[in-house]
């Protein structure tokens, strides 16, 4: 299967390991990812949109216009990019005046967009196009006894008018995926609560509190680790976990993996190839890594 691949800005900095693991598992599952040539920032609703609405839509539309020429579905592993690009599709469909203006802007870049690109989250591709059966066939090192708290957050499943491949309040696909990998899914309060998103930049205390509650509810439900499907959620829950610990004077120590890293481990891919050395909360103590290390020695 072949897709136009939109990596998103964080793939080049704070979430390099996410992209590494996406590419590593794609190889195993025969998914061909063709990067959208010359892609730019997705348009970042709500960050850019709130300041320059039409410019934000034009930025998104430029990516979509390039992808339209590729004649494939577009997939991105970032939930925020997924939302922005999908939302742009729906805005341009409903508002012909905006569509005309945006196309005038695109003309300056020698492009035009007709609205024909289907935008898919990478988790949707894995779940709906590849399917659990094929994934099961590729599992070489089942994550037996690992308790995984899958974290859906917001834009992967909401708003359901745009991000519609699972239930907005009780999604299950990441849990089903974890089970297929041999792990035990953990049910917990925080799985669709917001991590605080970009409030970390402006109102840090609020973000720290929101992410703390998610982490603690997963930990208290007995999770050995969490699995995310968005680089910003991952940043708040993993890279900022130490800040949460010191802000509230508590100990959490809960590894947070990108769901693709978890898949990679079950497929028997080297931890380093999945970028696990880049995760801030060390995942070394969770069992599949121990299993992977043991099997490497033999």
């Amino acid at each position, binding site marked *: 299967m072949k897709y136009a691949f939109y990596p998103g*800005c*964080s793939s*080049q*900095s*704070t*979430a*390099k390991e996410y992209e590494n693991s996406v590419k590593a598992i794609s190889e195993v599952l025969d998914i061909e990812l063709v990067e959208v040539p*010359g*892609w*730019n*920032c997705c348009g*970042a*609703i*709500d*960050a*850019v*949109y*709130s*300041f*320059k*609405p*039409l*410019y934000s*839509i*034009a*930025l998104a539309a*430029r990516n979509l216009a390039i992808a339209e020429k590729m004649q494939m579905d577009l997939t991105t592993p970032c939930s925020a990019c997924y939302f922005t690009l999908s939302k742009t599709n729906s805005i341009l469909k409903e508002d012909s005046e905006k569509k005309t*203006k*945006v196309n005038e*802007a*695109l003309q*300056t*870049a020698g492009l035009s967009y007709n609205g024909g690109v289907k935008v898919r989250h990478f988790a949707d591709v894995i779940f709906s196009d590849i399917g659990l059966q094929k994934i099961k066939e590729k599992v070489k090192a089942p994550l037996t006894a690992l308790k995984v708290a899958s974290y859906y*957050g*917001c*834009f992967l499943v*909401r*708003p*359901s008018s745009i991000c519609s491949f699972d239930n*907005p*309040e009780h999604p299950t696909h990441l849990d089903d995926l974890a089970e297929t990998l041999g792990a035990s899914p953990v049910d917990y309060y925080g799985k669709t*609560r*917001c991590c*605080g*998103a*970009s*409030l970390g*930049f*402006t*109102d840090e205390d*609020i973000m720290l*509190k*929101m992410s703390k509650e998610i982490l603690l509810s997963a930990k208290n439900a007995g999770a050995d680790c969490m699995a995310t499907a968005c680089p910003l959620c991952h940043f708040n829950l993993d*890279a900022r976990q*130490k*800040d949460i610990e*010191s802000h509230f004077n508590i100990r959490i120590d809960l590894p947070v993996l990108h769901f693709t890293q978890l898949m990679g481990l079950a497929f028997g891919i080297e931890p380093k190839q999945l970028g696990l050395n*880049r*995760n*801030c909360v060390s995942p070394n103590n969770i069992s599949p890594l121990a299993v992977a290390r043991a099997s490497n020695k033999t």
Partner: protein
Amino acid sequence: MLHEKKKFDTVTKTIQATPHQGSRKDFLREVMKLPGGEKILECIQCGSCAGGCPTRFAMDYSPMQIIKMINLGMKKEVLSSSTIWICSTCYTCSSRCPRDVGFATLMMALKNKAIQENMVKNPINSKFHRYFFEVVNKYGKLHEPSLFLKLLDKTDINGLRSNLGLGLRLLKKGKLEMRAKKIEQTSILSAMLEKTDERGTS
């Protein structure tokens, strides 16, 4: 919880005591034209939005109150509220609203309106959006360190210390790219901006 109840009662009393403002219908009409504002008259004040809101604890007015205030024409209070900035657009409210009011989408539009009408309560909030735009418009992509440095309050010693910790942590993990990667055709960005620029936002 008692504290919450007290806060709610006080705000409700303020709203009830506020006479319909002269330009009530004007503001309501303006909001109804914004994305997310179309169905604002459908609100039945059931409170599902406020009940599910994960950032309600930090807002001055709850989502449900903001909708009521828009209906009452309380433009100044709405546009200078902290609510519109603290909303993280998680869409929990929109998912639960039985009347299909697009609250989260409306919050993005109200942020823009508050910037245009110069009514932003806390400057850091609009700065974030301005700087985010500036970085993206310069490189074509988000370069996190540039955004971070622009936002950093150089007079806040404690803040600097904790941010230094985060910075070093990211650096150690190879997650900080100090040099921004630009897209090849950065010239198209300003051309696109010119074509899409809206009144009073630059």
